[in-house]
Each structure stands twice: as C-alpha cells, then as structure tokens.
C-alpha cells in the first residue's frame, strides 16, 4: 500500500541518491519555488516604499528644475498670480484631455487602447509605444503660459532615461532640463545627472526660424545656439539624449500640444 504520510514521503525523498532523476527534479522545483516566493515577497512588500521614493524624487527634481531656470525664483516670488498647474493632455490632439484627470491617469494608462504603437521611423526615442495621455505642468501668469514642463523618456545606453524638460513662453527655447531616472555607465553616461551639464540646456533653442528641428547634443563643445556640449566618453548616451529630446518635442511627441499653447489655448 502506498504510504501517503507527507513526513515519511519527505524523508524518503531526502534519502534518495542525489543522482536519481526524481530527486534532481524535486530539488530543482523546490529551489525554484522557494526563490520565487522570496523574490515576489520582497518586491511586493517594498514596492509602496519604492514608489513613494520615485514620486518624491520627481517632485524634488521638478522643484529643482523650476528654481534652476534663470529668473524663475523671482518670477515665483514676484507674481502673485503665477501659478503652477498640472494638466493631463492628449498627445494626439494637443488639447487638454477631457475625461482623464491626474488621479485617473494611472488607471487610464493600464488600458492598451490609450497607447499608440510607433513605427520605426517615428520611434526616435526607441520606446515602442507612446502613451496618449501625459501629465504636464504649466506655469501661468496673467493668462500667459510662462513655462511648460514636460516629462520625457526614452532608451539610453544601459536602460531607460527619464527626464523633465521645460520650455519658455515663446515655445522655441528650452528653459531647463533635469534627468529624473537613468542607469547609464557611472562616471561616463551617468554624467547626464550633473547639474553643470544640465545647465547647458537653459537658453538652447530647439527649432530654427523655419520651424525645423535643430536640437542636438554635440560631439565635443557646442558650436551653435541649437546644441549643448557632448559628454566625453559617452557618445551613445549623448546620442540617446538627442533622439529623446527630438522625439518628444517633435510632431509625434508634444508637437500638437506646443502648437495649441502657441495659439493661446491654455
């Protein structure tokens, strides 16, 4: 009669020779299950803390970006009616999203219908799919948009680069840029985090008078109004930054939104 007692079954498994097929499968299975449980538990338990860390990081960077922009601190202090508002925009139309609010944005983006697949020619930033709804920040003073802060992201050399880019009221000049998340090579590509390099973005124009995209991270020192200095030893990361900025400020990125801001819609 088969012995169904689990304890004696466990003992019989342990005394099997290590080379037996049953024991090999058993050990492999048990190791996999235990490790999976440990890893899942750690991820699930620690996720709320990590999410809070990331949100705090974005907030800190947003504030740092705003204060780093020349004249920004004065503007915030002086103008009583200058207010920073956050708006969810529809990237396809360039208008404020009708039924998505900052609170429901996360739920809306779980639905794949709210993402647009990009063709390889469009996909400069190498992201595959682009969300249709994005939360952007605007600084308004007396019915004029003084500053437009846009989250941007794309593939870097080692992983995803996330950043915030701010445009001045003329919608042609970059007011500032800050990297919120990256995993580039420490000491080389990771220097995109350095404030000294990010400060180069302030005052850089990204389109010329005919409206053609001209922004680039130069190979070496910048030579025109449209370029920022390249990072020595980090060509791939520099190129990635060029592509990410060009994609997001271009027609498949925030282009329609920038148009409607120019038309005075916001």
């Amino acid at each position: 009669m088969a012995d169904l007692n689990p304890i004696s079954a466990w003992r019989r498994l342990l005394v099997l020779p290590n080379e037996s097929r049953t024991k090999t499968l058993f050990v492999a299975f048990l190791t996999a299950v235990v490790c999976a449980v440990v890893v899942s538990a750690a991820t699930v338990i620690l996720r709320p803390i990590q999410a809070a860390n990331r949100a705090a990081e974005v907030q800190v960077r947003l504030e740092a970006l705003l204060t780093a922009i020349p004249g920004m601190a004065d503007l915030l202090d002086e103008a009583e009616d200058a207010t920073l508002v956050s708006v969810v925009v529809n990237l396809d139309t360039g208008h404020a999203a009708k039924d998505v609010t900052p609170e429901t944005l996360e739920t809306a983006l779980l639905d794949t219908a709210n993402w647009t697949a990009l063709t390889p020619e469009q996909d400069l930033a190498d992201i595959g799919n682009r969300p249709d709804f994005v939360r952007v920040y605007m600084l308004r003073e007396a019915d004029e948009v003084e500053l437009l802060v846009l989250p941007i992201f794309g593939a870097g050399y080692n992983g995803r680069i996330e950043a915030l880019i701010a445009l001045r009221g003329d919608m042609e000049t970059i007011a500032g840029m800050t990297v919120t998340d990256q995993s580039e090579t420490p000491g080389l590509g990771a220097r995109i985090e350095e404030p000294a390099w990010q400060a180069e973005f302030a005052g850089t124009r990204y389109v010329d008078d005919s409206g053609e995209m001209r922004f680039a991270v130069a190979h070496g020192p910048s030579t025109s109004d449209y370029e920022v200095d390249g990072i020595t030893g980090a060509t791939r990361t520099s190129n990635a930054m060029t592509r990410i900025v060009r994609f997001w400020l271009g027609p498949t990125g925030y282009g329609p939104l920038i148009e409607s801001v120019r038309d005075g819609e916001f």
Partner: protein
Amino acid sequence: MAADPRLRSALIAPLVAKNPITLQILGICSALAVTTSLDTALTMAVSLTVVLVLSSLIVSTIRRHIPGTIRLIVQIVIVASLVIVIDQFLQAYFFDISQRLSVFVALITTNCLVLGRTESFARSNPPLASMADALGNGLGYSLVLVTIGAIRELFGTGTLLGLQVFETVDQGGWFTPLSLMLLAPSAFFLLGGLVWAVRSLLPEQAEARETTPPEVEEARP
C-alpha cells in the same frame, strides 16, 4: 570564534594573503565600475558581503542534497534571488545610492567571486566554516574596493564621502582634481599598482613564469 583556529584563518586569510581580488583577480569588473566614490564602493562592498555570506550559508546547508548535474543552476538561482532582494531593499531604503549604483548591484549575480566561493568552498564544508570563509572573502573584496574608492574619490574630486578634504581650485583652494581618476582606466592603473605592491611585499603570491627565455651566449670573437 577565536576558539577555533581554522575558522579564524578562514576569516583572516582572504583579507590580504589570499585576497580574492589582488591574488585571484576575481570580481574585478564591478570593483572597477563602482569605485568612483567611497560611498558607492562601501554600499557595493556591504551588498556583496551580505549576498556572499547568505548564499554560502544556504548552499552549505543543503549541500548534501544538491544533485551534481544541476548544482550550478541551483547555486546561481539562490544567488540571483538574494541579489534581487538586496537590490529591492536598497531601492526602498537607500534610494540615492541605489540610483548611482544602477545596474551593478544586479550584476553581483554574475560576480565570479560569489559563485567561486559557493562552488569551491560552501558546497563541501559545513555552514559555520562556509560563512566564515564567505565573510573573510567579502571583507577582502571590501578592503580593496574601499581602498580604490577612497583614492579615486580623494584625487578625483578632493572629497571623501562627500566631505571636502582638499580645497579645489574652483572653490579658491590649491587642488586641481585629476579627472582621470573618475574614468574607468584609472581603476585599472590603481588595481594594477595594488597587485604589484602586494606581490612585492608578499613574494610568495607572485606566479611562476610560464616560460623562461632561453639563455643566449654572446658570440665572442
């Protein structure tokens, strides 16, 4: 611990005499990448030591039940799981440093040092001895990382753990930072210098020449 001389030698030998980095040249990939500043080097050293000790403990505990055919897979799965847990922990509680360490914590999995110790020592020794050996090797790795990290941070930026030690020229002082120290090649130079220094002091570590050049008699007229 002092009672058992074998445990003590397992703990102390890997610090200098059998240092995993300078003698065995194991695990140098991460040692070079994270040593641009002292605090990343310290975090990496602590993470690796914790992973090494825990994986040695686990592998050594189940050592009699690991089938020889799948032993490497079992070991690497255990190591990888521990690494993920540590990585998640750093992301939750040491967010800044984990951002700067980026992928290198995750790459502890492939660090030859960890698999080397579990495969060559923990698999055939009882848990306590394995943990002493793992801790010794972890500390030996840490010693090299902290040394190189301190030199690179001090001469590369004039700071230690973010505190200004040398006034740089930018701040009106005398010290011109050596930017080379922050680039990857300097880590190779420093590590090479360290290996040379250790082998000069302890000549028994030097490896035997693989070939000896033939002696050529000079032709005399």
